[in-house]
């Protein structure tokens, strides 16, 4: 559906403002959708077409229900694509549409310029449609149940990717073929010979063909004894794709799930930054340029809805917005660098202002170079923590309650950073794909103080076993003790190690 005239004019106007502020966006295509259609698109993660899978139906039902009960409303949805697609809800008031447009322009700027999105596929819209076609074709050939069941299995493993992989080189490039052969030839193994008194008896006691066989066997053993993979592999999905005994269609489905996981990963890595950026700009564009006098109250109402929160949940919109403003203020007034850091006079610090006006440039730089982890690590300081009244909470087993456990700046920051590292997912890597020389797969969980959720870990091991087909295990820590969780296709074992 093409955009109605009045919205098109609005878009031109807001684009003008966005560009004047220095936002640099892909072309944006807005579409107006009914709430039913927008729920569908939201269930599909923003895309109009995805491969058939029940979880989209589940998502849809839940969105529909919360909407019908009036509990939640989808405000904005925008996908990282060139051109960028964004959706407006039919029947929203004009001021809502304005906010959404301004918000979307900032998101789009972020997608285009943030470093961590550099390697995402900007034609993902098409790619997703291709994925759908491929999966449908497999379903037509093999039956929906089988394919969908395998997708379930893959989705269980979907978070086992290496989020840094697109940006660094984990493995040295494979050596040229000749060298590889050399390397394999080198470990020449001596086959022990039986001692022979008379030289002429040697061919009979140590027959040549037997010796040759033995040599072959030893070499094979030696090769097998070498660890595989040589280095721990974080991209578990990629590893499975290359080495698990999969049929071609299964490999393709796994590739689809993996590609989509990598596509969505940067959005998980930059949630706070991205939402904060969009909120910062919609507030700026709206209040400084676009709002009519009559719309101020509505705007304030909706904006506070976006940045409002509950004590136990950190609102990424709010925290991101405040942190950008905090940075802008610091760089405008020159509150950074050695001199400021070493200043002991609190009164002087409070009134510190060098009139540098570098704030705007700084936040543009921040949005280009950082992700949530580095953003928080670098810029969340004591002042900010106090201003925003941040606290850490924990489960108190004695009272069976969630309680505020700390107001200490360092502790809060550590907690927040931990939540964000690997976007809140445990770090798990393949360490051995031929355990005990029996083709068993060993994963290692880099334990950072928090255990895996037990029942889900078991269910995930079952999924892993369906892909690998040989026994699978994960080394982790349970209640402070190193533990090996193992599944061999029939039963689960938990074994204390070390």
């Amino acid at each position: 559906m093409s955009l109605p005239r009045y919205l098109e004019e609005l878009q031109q106007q807001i684009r003008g403002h966005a560009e004047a502020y220095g936002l640099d966006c892909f072309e944006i295509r807005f579409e107006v959708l009914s709430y039913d259609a927008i729920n569908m698109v939201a269930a599909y993660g923003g895309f109009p077409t995805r491969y058939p899978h029940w979880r989209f139906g589940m998502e849809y039902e839940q969105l529909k229900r919360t909407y019908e009960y009036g509990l939640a409303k989808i405000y904005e949805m925008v996908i990282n694509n060139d051109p960028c697609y964004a959706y407006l809800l039919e029947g929203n008031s004009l001021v809502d549409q304005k906010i959404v447009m301004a918000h979307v322009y900032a998101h789009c700027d972020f997608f285009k310029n943030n470093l961590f999105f550099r390697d995402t596929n900007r034609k993902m819209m098409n790619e997703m449609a291709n994925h759908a076609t491929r999966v449908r074709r497999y379903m037509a050939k093999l039956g929906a149940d089988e394919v969908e069941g395998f997708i379930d299995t893959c989705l269980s493993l979907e978070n086992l990717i290496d989020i840094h992989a697109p940006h660094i080189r984990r493995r040295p490039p494979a050596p040229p073929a000749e060298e590889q052969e050399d390397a394999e030839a080198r470990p020449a193994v001596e086959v022990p010979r039986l001692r022979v008194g008379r030289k002429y008896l040697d061919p009979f006691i140590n027959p040549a063909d037997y010796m040759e066989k033995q040599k072959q066997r030893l070499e094979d053993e030696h090769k097998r004894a070498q660890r595989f993979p040589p280095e721990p592999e974080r991209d578990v999905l990629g590893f499975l794709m290359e080495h698990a005994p999969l049929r071609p269609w299964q490999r393709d489905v796994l590739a689809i799930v993996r590609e989509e996981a990598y596509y969505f990963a940067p959005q998980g890595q930059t949630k706070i930054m991205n939402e904060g950026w969009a909120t910062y700009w919609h507030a700026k564009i709206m209040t400084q340029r676009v709002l009519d006098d009559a719309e101020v109250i509505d705007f304030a109402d909706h904006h506070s809805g976006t940045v409002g929160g509950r004590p136990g949940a950190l609102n990424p919109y709010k925290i991101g917005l405040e942190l950008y403003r905090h940075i802008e203020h610091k760089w405008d007034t020159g509150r950074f660098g050695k001199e400021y850091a070493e200043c002991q006079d609190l009164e002087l610090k409070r009134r510190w202002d060098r009139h540098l006006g570098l704030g705007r440039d700084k936040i543009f730089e921040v949005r280009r170079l950082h992700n949530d982890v580095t953003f928080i690590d670098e810029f969340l300081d004591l002042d900010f923590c106090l201003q925003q009244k941040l606290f850490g909470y924990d489960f108190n087993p004695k009272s069976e309650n969630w309680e505020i456990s700390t107001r200490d700046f360092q502790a809060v920051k550590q907690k927040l950073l931990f939540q964000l590292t690997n976007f809140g997912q445990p770090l798990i890597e393949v360490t051995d794909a031929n355990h005990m020389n029996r083709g068993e797969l060993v994963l290692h969980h880099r334990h950072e103080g928090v255990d895996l959720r037990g029942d889900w870990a078991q269910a995930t091991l079952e999924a892993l076993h369906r892909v690998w087909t040989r026994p699978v295990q994960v080394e982790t820590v349970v209640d402070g003790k190193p533990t090996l969780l193992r599944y061999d296709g029939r039963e689960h074992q938990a074994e204390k190690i070390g």
Partner: protein
Amino acid sequence: MTQKIDADHARFRHIVRGKIKQNLKRFMSQGEIFGKKGKDVVSIPLPQIQIPHFRYGHKQTGGVGQGDGEVGTVLEPGQVEGDGTGKAGQDPGEHVLEVDITIAELAEILGEELALPRIEPRGQHKLEAEKSRYTGIHRAGPESLRHFKRTYREALKRQIALGSYDLERPVVVPIREDKRYRSWKVAWLRESNAVIVYIMDVSGSMGDEQKEIVRITSFWLDTWLQSQYQGLEVRYITHDASAREVDRETFFHTRESGGTMISSAYKLLADMIAGDYGSGEWNIYPFHFSDGDNWSNEDTRLCLELLQSKVLPAVNQFGYGQVESPYGSGQFIKDLRQAYPEDGHVVMTEIPGRDAIVECIRSFLGKGR
């Protein structure tokens, strides 16, 4: 409007159905399985349907929040669970998926799983009900019921007939005579009515657990019978040494301490049937739950007499469930068994614990009466 998502949604519903079916027996022995119960919808928590991942256990992680409060301030449960927007590091946590399912669908699953036969209602051909449906069209009516499309079609027909319709300027203006209105037609529906009468022993020996068993059992009986009859009434009788009719709330929550005279309840039941449901058009299902400790043999004899002469001729089936209490299981079921052979219109079952609810339902409803 059909959408692409419909196929995925249907697929999801299919899986939900499968999961409910798979876990039905477990659901049936656990009362708290229902999150919310609306008029004709129940929500069932189905955590099994989520896709598992390697994930942090929630209770060790904790998190970061924002707002007032000292160290040690308790956060309300609702505040901690991750919300939709808090995906950055905010674990969705222990959020349990709840799915809605209609009572009708649930009954269907129940029927399939326990292989329950459909009930052949009695008196079906005599009872008729009037039902109006807005399917007709009238020439007169209120503007709020004007049928837009039909009205314009009439106007177009008229204009074409008169030759006043201009293809170049296709303007159709209805006049008064063109207007058409929706109206109702009366349909006569054959309807069969049914009534369930729950009778429960509330004497001192029936504890909370026993009542819970009765509550769960009655939910499933309601569900099934509701799916079999259009109109279903439910009445409740409690008794200890004397019987009285009560409402649902009281039924499940009263606690008496007296002795047990079952005949008092059967007498009330017989009166109720004779008074309100005597026309022979009703399908009547009394279910009696007790721990079987009747006051005296004399009273038991009176019970059997009442059943034989007043109750059994009028009802489809009489169900007796003997719930085992901490004081053991009483004599009453044995007396009933002696009096009535196995496949008569009296169905007797013992319910030693929650696990036996499934069997109880099967024997109560398995006869298709």
